[in-house]
């Protein structure tokens, strides 16, 4: 039945005025602030991002977009974050933006009144934050938790390790998922408590930064525990929000890497002809472009119906699956079509390809999301 209805129901897409304005601003801002030579320079930096750029972003108020006004935010939603992250992806921009706004979402949906009042204004004001979700089992299911917390006279004693915590060193607070009395829960860990517990990870995407956190024996006050009764809803929200933003980043990346490859196809000659005139390359870049357009339609549809029961989840799953496949295919062909140059680190194609692999590894790849859709449909 549901499948029947879903198929009959005309899928919806739309763009709010705020989205349209942000799309315009983000396009020029990200292009100007993240030229490729700067991206490559940041690769060599330990923290991998530009603090000045970070405060620019804070000043633009982008960190408060998803935060309610009464907590110092602008009170818009996920939909308005999509155009921003899309253009960050187009320009391979790397800052703690995504982990920070996702952490804010976790607080909005899962924090106590006191916690929201304490932390949301900080985050909306420019304090970087992050989420510690991934574990050694490599599972995308956020409720599959081996890291645990136990109560001990007013304190929570944590045990276990978290992985792929984006920009953990820059974050002033890290929200970690833990199993408490066999239930999923979120605890807020301040930066100072993490001293000496952070290891930078060697990840495939050189433009980003991820860290492993050793939480063994770390103790935080019980006040750091987010209300357990809100945890399940908050985690479900994070999974959707994370997938949506990663889809945006990957859609943007797919566009940029197709564009980058087109430049080469229009200027590089072999056997006396521009290589873009050969159908082997032309038709396959067309296929990449078609896949990108498809993914972008799903992305803005998912942004438009985000949060709606059923329809909203389905749209996000589709957007993440399509964006991941479109980006992966486009970047794979980008390397190939650049020939010998494509095999060098100097060619940007590999930067896109590596970011695509990273983007699929976070918040679920195409196979994972198609399974979720199947579960909803069949």
């Amino acid at each position, binding site marked *: 039945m549901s499948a029947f209805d879903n*198929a009959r129901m005309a899928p919806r*897409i739309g763009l709010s005025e705020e989205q349209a304005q942000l799309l*315009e601003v983000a396009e020029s801002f990200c292009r100007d602030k993240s030229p490729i030579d700067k991206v490559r320079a940041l690769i060599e930096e330990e923290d991998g991002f530009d603090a000045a750029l970070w405060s620019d972003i804070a000043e633009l108020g982008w960190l408060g977009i998803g935060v309610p006004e009464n907590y110092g935010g602008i009170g818009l939603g996920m939909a308005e974050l999509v155009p921003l992250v899309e253009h960050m992806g187009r320009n391979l921009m790397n800052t703690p933006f995504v982990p920070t706004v996702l952490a804010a979402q976790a607080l909005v949906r899962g924090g106590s009144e006191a916690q929201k009042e304490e932390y949301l204004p900080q985050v909306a004001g420019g304090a970087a934050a992050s989420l510690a979700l991934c574990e050694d089992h490599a599972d995308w299911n956020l409720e599959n938790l081996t890291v645990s917390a136990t109560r001990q006279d007013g304190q929570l004693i944590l045990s276990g390790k978290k992985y792929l915590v984006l920009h953990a060193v820059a974050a002033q607070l890290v929200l970690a998922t833990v199993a408490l009395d066999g239930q999923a829960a979120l605890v807020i860990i301040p930066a100072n408590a993490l001293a000496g517990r952070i290891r930078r990870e060697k990840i495939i995407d050189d433009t980003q930064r991820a860290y492993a956190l050793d939480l063994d024996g770390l103790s935080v006050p019980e006040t750091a525990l987010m209300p357990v009764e809100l945890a399940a809803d908050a985690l479900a929200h994070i999974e959707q929000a994370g997938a949506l933003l990663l889809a945006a980043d990957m859609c943007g990346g797919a566009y940029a890497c197709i564009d980058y490859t087109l430049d080469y196809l229009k200027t590089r000659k072999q056997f006396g002809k521009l290589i873009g005139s050969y159908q082997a390359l032309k*038709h396959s870049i067309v296929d990449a472009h078609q896949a990108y357009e498809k993914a972008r339609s799903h992305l803005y549809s998912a942004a438009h119906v985000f949060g709606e029961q059923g329809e909203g989840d389905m749209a996000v799953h589709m957007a993440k699956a399509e964006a991941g496949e479109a980006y992966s295919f486009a970047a794979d062909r980008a390397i190939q079509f650049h020939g010998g140059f494509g095999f060098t680190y100097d060619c940007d194609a590999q930067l896109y390809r590596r970011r695509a692999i990273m983007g699929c590894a976070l918040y679920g790849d195409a196979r994972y999301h198609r399974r979720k859709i199947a579960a909803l449909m069949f």
Partner: protein
Amino acid sequence: HMADSDIEYDEQDLAAFKDEATAWFGENTPRDVDFMLPLTFMEVGTDQQFNFLRDWQNKVYEAGYLGAHWPKEYGGGGLHPAFQDAATRVMAQMRTPIMLNAIGLNWTGPLLLDRGSEEEKQKYIKGILSAETIWCQGFSEPENGSDLGNAQTRAVKDGDDYVINGSKIWTTQGNYADYMILLARTNPDAENKYKGLSFFLAPMKGAGVETVPIKKLTGEYGFTQTFFTDARISADCLMGAEGEGWLIAMQTLEYERGARAGQAGGHVMMMSDPSDIIRLAREAKLNGKPAIDDPAVQEELVALMTEARSLGLNSRRDKIRPLAQDRPMSLALGSKLASTDFYQRLNAFAITLQGTRAAYYVGDDSAHDNGVWQRGYLNSFSATIGGGTSQIQRNIIGEHVLGLPKS
């Protein structure tokens, strides 16, 4: 020329119109027809099918649900386009039989309304809507399947007539048509092949015009090859001026590709609803279990549903300027490739869900859905080949959207 889509209209009138339409089609849509109805206007293979659809189109027109936005003075309804769109949507949702006179409704009609003479509009528009006069298309030729500009059919001015010689192929309903929009060469010595072409509204019933039905790979009919042997047509049949043929033909194709509006409405093709394949996957058995229980099948079904949704989303997104300006024309020019390849993949996959019963064809009691999937797969090539093959479409997108050099 037609109800300006920018002028206001009363939303309540529209709602009322839509309700009436829903009621009317609910009442008048023919039920349990005892022969296979064509799913597209290219599959009209028997007189029975032709007569049935001709009556149906006429009935829909008389009821005011076809050409509702075309000018009153020529036989249209004179309403705002939103009204016809509403009626068209009702027909699609209720999966009513297709409109027969596709070339007239979607190509000739809008073309005449956009650039036809007053006489031409007076003479042809009403008959197009009522299906009284059937139109066919004469662009492709046997030797120039994809290369329309190279058309060799000759039209030689002789007094008040043109004398036509040559052959056209892929004429839909050619054996039934009263008129053909004909692309013919009036000047073989023009500075280039395009400038030598002219555009005619040519009668089909005259002497020297012969149509031979083409048997499709499905084993059915629906197209003809049309032979012109010293066929005389009046010089009035020339549309525009000599040498404008290519220009007019290209504009005509824009109506087909949906890159230009103005079509009379109603659907001329019935794409199998994507949800049909889910029903099939529930009914068909693989290794003793419903095919839909197989995770690999589920994964492909999900990919197909995702694809199906993207087709609708692409066309809606195309209307949202900020989301469609990076590469102008991308979504419009990409839609044919996307939808036709999807439809082929959908039908091909459906066949693989049927186990041993994949071996059956239309007309066997053991065939799933009376073989509609096998037949639909074979017919899907009309869309991946006709109107510019998928390979040509990729050239168009690569060159006109992505700016790549010509192959």
